């Protein structure tokens, strides 16, 4: 049991470094066990250093940098152990357009093994998906689903 945990932790750690690099366009990141001798009890420390900045405590990161670091960890876990499907509700809300484009490049790659459902308000995100549905309330209080043709993204 302990051996399996340490092995999968090491895999996630390596994937997290790669994902962080790709999402931030550089920088450094790391995952550490607070108590390596007791892998089944130990907590997990997250270190994140955006490109060009000094390593600080993750509380000093900006709102968008925190969200992007959490996304890097999530995508690392999805790469190591893909789940058949994954539903993400407005994870792009605090990201700027450059970071949304990088995010969507990673999600497209992961979508070979995982079916994704993304809830979003961002036009950048909508441009990068395979299928688009709209939810509206033509009758107030009653939801209707409509399929949106992707040919015309300006609609």
């Amino acid at each position: 049991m302990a051996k399996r945990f340490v092995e999968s932790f090491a895999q996630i750690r390596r994937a997290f470094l790669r994902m962080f690099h790709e999402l931030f366009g550089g920088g450094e990141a790391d995952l550490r066990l607070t108590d390596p001798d007791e892998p089944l009890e130990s907590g997990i420390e997250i270190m994140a250093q955006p490109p060009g900045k000094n390593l600080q405590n993750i509380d000093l990161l900006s709102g968008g940098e925190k969200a992007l670091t959490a996304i890097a960890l999530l995508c690392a876990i999805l790469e190591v152990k893909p789940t058949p499907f994954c539903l993400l509700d407005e994870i792009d809300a605090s990201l700027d357009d450059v970071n949304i484009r990088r995010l969507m490049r990673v999600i497209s790659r992961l979508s070979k093994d995982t079916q994704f459902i993304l809830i979003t308000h961002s036009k950048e995100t909508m441009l990068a998906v395979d299928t688009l549905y709209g939810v509206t309330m033509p009758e107030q209080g009653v939801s209707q689903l409509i399929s949106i043709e992707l040919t015309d993204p300006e609609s």
Partner: protein
Amino acid sequence: MHIKRLELRGFKSFADKTELHLADGITAVVGPNGSGKSNLADAIKWVLGEQSVKALRGSRMEELIFAGTKTRRGLGLAEVSLVFDNESGRFPLAYNEVAVTRRLFKSGESEYYLNQSKCRLRDIQDLFLDTGIGKDAYSFIGQGRIDELLSARPEERRAIFEEVA
């Protein structure tokens, strides 16, 4: 193995029978504030066996049933089905499609069905064992909750790593 479609009726703001067909790859769901996007996410969590009403943003199970509007009466039943493709024989059932269904009556009773025949929650949980499908941590990230992966204390972060191991 992938999800072919989600069918719902009487679940939260989805009063009428609604079908969301899913293809491979990435599907985006967009729409105005309050139109029902996160309710779709709740429907998927619920049909997969979510027992906590709080995780579905309510305080009583009955709040999951369409409560009516200024111009429509409320309903007495909520029903959601999630239909999986079984061409690859991933599920040990002799069907090309596997439909998981959950129903809720005003009384608060939940019923579960597997391809139209009644079953227990236990049967559905067994079916999904080892497929990675379930309502847990990293396959659902709720609205405003992406930061929780970081903000938890070091001991609390273990859970997600243990799931992978």
